[in-house]
């Protein structure tokens, strides 16, 4: 069956949303021009205004509305935060980029807008959804995704029903899930020459959108935290069968370090196995020294972090000089930071500056 194109739900909301955001900005500007404090109205999300609708068969908001006024001292801060968020997602839409909730939280700092914690920024995004009356996916704010691969690599399936069928791993821009079929696939053709592994879904999507695979001839892997074993196996295959160097990017803290280390040297739990490590893979960042050199926003190490670092210091897998040095720096500066921290310098900073510098430094 062929699908008629009378409704195109996939993209039309985006242009509507874009327009609504612009109108909102215009309204505020005009109000200020007139010497009137800008206000915005939205449906109240308080418990007393949530009703079950038998017609829609879901919970809906009632008629009660709330007004946010920039005249009201208590509203001023969230009002400004919402205007910024509107501005930020409008930029995302204009540039056809996506983001995650966590990314939004970090990005705010670049604009001198501060959120107490991520739950505050999540709340503001929910406010904006309420004002615009579209879900945040319509303004390109997505939740995190799970372990996946992306890049110019044609594979050939060996699973039943797919024998001989081929697929290029750049064919699905969300990333191709690493599952049984992919693990068992043959590698056929590629123009890439390296593998870049990232721990966080947000960075993976960022790298895809910024065409890291083209600009650096890379196959991208997203581990979703500690890499699942099938993913570690897949990384090893890329390294062994194709001879590609592997660069791993993870959070700058003992746990992030260890995500890289487990890909490189495996875990004690899997000591009886040989097929899950990639000894030549490199931990490419974020290093403790990067926190200083790139002036990244950071948090204090917790007691548990410090305890973990002490353990790692005595772990034979960490005996190499570079690892030891990074552990020493962590202990000295008593700070840690996440991959997304680069967003403080703009979304593309990590790709435009950090990545090329680091790859060059590592001789890639």
């Amino acid at each position, binding site marked *: 069956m062929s699908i008629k194109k009378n409704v195109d739900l996939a993209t039309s909301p985006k242009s509507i949303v874009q327009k609504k*955001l*612009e109108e*909102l*900005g*215009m309204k*505020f*500007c*005009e109000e*200020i*021009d*007139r*010497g*009137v*404090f*800008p206000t915005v109205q939205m449906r109240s999300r308080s418990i007393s205004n949530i009703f079950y609708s038998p017609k829609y068969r879901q919970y809906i908001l009632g008629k009660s509305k709330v007004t946010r006024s*920039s*005249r009201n*001292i208590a509203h*001023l*801060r969230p*009002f*400004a935060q919402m*205007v*910024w968020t*509107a*501005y930020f997602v*409008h930029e995302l839409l204009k540039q056809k980029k996506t983001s995650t909730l966590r990314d939004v939280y970090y990005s705010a700092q670049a*604009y*001198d*807008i501060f959120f107490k914690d991520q739950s505050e920024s999540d709340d503001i995004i929910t406010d904006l959804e309420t004002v615009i009356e579209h879900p945040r996916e319509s303004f390109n704010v997505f939740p995190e995704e799970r372990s996946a691969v992306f890049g110019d690599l044609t594979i050939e399936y060996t699973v039943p029903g797919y024998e001989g069928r081929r697929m290029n791993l750049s064919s699905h821009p969300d990333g191709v899930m690493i599952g049984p079929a992919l693990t068992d696939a043959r590698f056929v053709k590629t123009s890439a020459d390296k593998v870049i592994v990232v721990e966080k879904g947000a960075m993976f999507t960022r790298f895809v959108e910024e065409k890291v695979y083209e600009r650096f001839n890379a196959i991208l892997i997203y581990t979703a935290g500690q890499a699942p074993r099938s993913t570690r196996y897949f990384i090893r295959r890329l390294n062994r069968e194709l001879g590609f160097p592997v660069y791993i990017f993870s959070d700058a803290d003992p746990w992030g370090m260890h995500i890289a280390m487990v890909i490189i040297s495996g875990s004690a739990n899997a000591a009886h196995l040989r097929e899950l490590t990639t000894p030549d893979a490199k931990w490419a960042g974020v290093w403790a020294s990067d926190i200083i050199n790139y002036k990244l926003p950071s948090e204090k190490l917790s007691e548990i972090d410090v305890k973990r670092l002490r353990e790692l210091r005595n772990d034979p897998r960490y005996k190499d000089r570079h690892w030891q040095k990074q552990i020493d720096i962590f202990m000295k500066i008593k700070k840690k930071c996440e991959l997304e921290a680069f967003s403080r310098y703009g979304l593309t900073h990590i790709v435009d500056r950090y990545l090329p510098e680091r790859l060059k430094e590592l001789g890639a």
Partner: protein
Amino acid sequence: MAGFTNPARSIFTSIRELVENSLDAADVARIPPEIYIRLSKDGDSDDTYTLRVADNGSGISPHHIPLAFGQFLFSSKYRLKQARGTFGLGGTMAILYGQITTNKPVKVISSTGKSLIVEYRLLIDIEKNRPIILDRKIHANPRAKSKRWRGTVVEIHLRGSYAQAMPKVLEYLKQTAMVNPYANIIFIDPRGRLYKFDRTVEKMPPPPKEINPHPYGVDVETLQRIMRSTTEDNMLKFMQKHFHRVGEKIARDFLKRAGISEDRDPKTLRPEEIVDLVEKMKEYDGFLPPEADCLSPLGEDLLREGVLKELEPEFVAVRQRKPSAYSGHPFIVEVAIAYGGKVPAKDDILLYRFANKIPLVYDESGDVCWKIVRSINWRRYNLTPNMPFAIIIHVCSTKIPYKTLGKEILADQLEVSREILNGIREVARQLARYLSRKERVKRQVRRLAVFSRYLPKIARFSAGLAGRRPPDISKLYQRKQVFKGFITSGKYVDSEIFDSHRYSVVFVHIQNKHKENPAAVRVLGLVNSKWEVLIPESTLTSGSEIYETLRGRYKAVKIQAKSLKPDKKSLIDAYIDGLSQ
């Protein structure tokens, strides 16, 4: 013996009794007291001490000393006067306690300021209740009157435990200093530490007078005592002479109602008639209320001085209530509240209780003062018990309504409690006003900072969204510093002018940043091309600030400042904010 029930309490009570005797002696002499207290260990003993208390009071005439210190006097006196003595015979009690626990005599040295100084060593013959004089010496006082010593030194030996008593002793002395700001008190403890409480005023409160008992407050025993000693031979005169505020007219009316002949010789009244007479006096509603001139309250000035001196608060309010009476006993309640500064913030309210200038430091919780303090809804005054504030309550009366023999707990006497409650309410209201004003200034300053922080951002990102250049936010809000480190002179000088025509509300915020000198400031507004004074001249003490909201439209607003005293320059910062709508 009450007050001597354990080793800690014994030390405390002994010090207290002797100190209070000394304070009373100074009151009598109308001289600001100098009290010197020394407690020292006796040799190697772990628990026996020598206590020496010296004062500059009236002194005691030599032949009186053995009776005053070596005997319990059950006097035949019935006239009333406000006095400290908690146990009445307190000093002698301390001496007796010392004698029992150490078997050592008391040493007393005294002079009334005449040519002799007398020194006694005495024991009390307990069975016979009379002094045993062990030793008596006479010293010469200098001939020059100005160099003569006057006062009393009492030195006893006693058993006790200072380590345990210490907190209460120090608390007692601190509180004593609080209600006796005209006294110098020095205490040297057994470890050789010196505690000094200096007087800050020379003025003493007026001394109490002695009065007759009020008919409402008389009991059978007192009445019998009066009858035994009276020289009057008819009831009409008897009533007038021996009772407070009973004149001829009232005496006549009362006796008529009581059914007693005016001519009756009081000594002929039979016991049952005396009982009946007491009841009749209590029932009769024609007596005038007692007068308070027998009382010696501290007065608001002295109380404030004492609180400032010992608590060093940021704010204090004091209130003396009008004299009142219960059951024929006149009384006056004085209340203070102290906030901030060195007043500590504890889990609970700090409460200081005083009766006839004596601090009550034991058995706090059963006291009616606590009951009253607890009954108050402090939220009404924007206070919570964990804030740094203290309540000071002083009750003075010819008869303090104690609840127990221990004389540490005030009973819930309706009339007294009402005065205490109203007193606390008055001072608490003053504190509440002080705090809310302080809070308002802080809040407004914070509010305006929020506008200046966020409005520009709203404008900027809205413009970004709309794809145009940012709108001008000064239509909504503007802040201007009109004085910046301005040094005042003897004459008013204008600040910069703030163009306020588009704002419906204008905020003025002036700070005197000088460390000592006060300033005078005022605020003017341009109305119909004329500068009108909007806020008249106000004094701005060193470190303080004014924050005012001006409502109504003015073309412009400015501030003027000058030194309060021509030669004392002050340092002024001032801001004006305008907000539209």
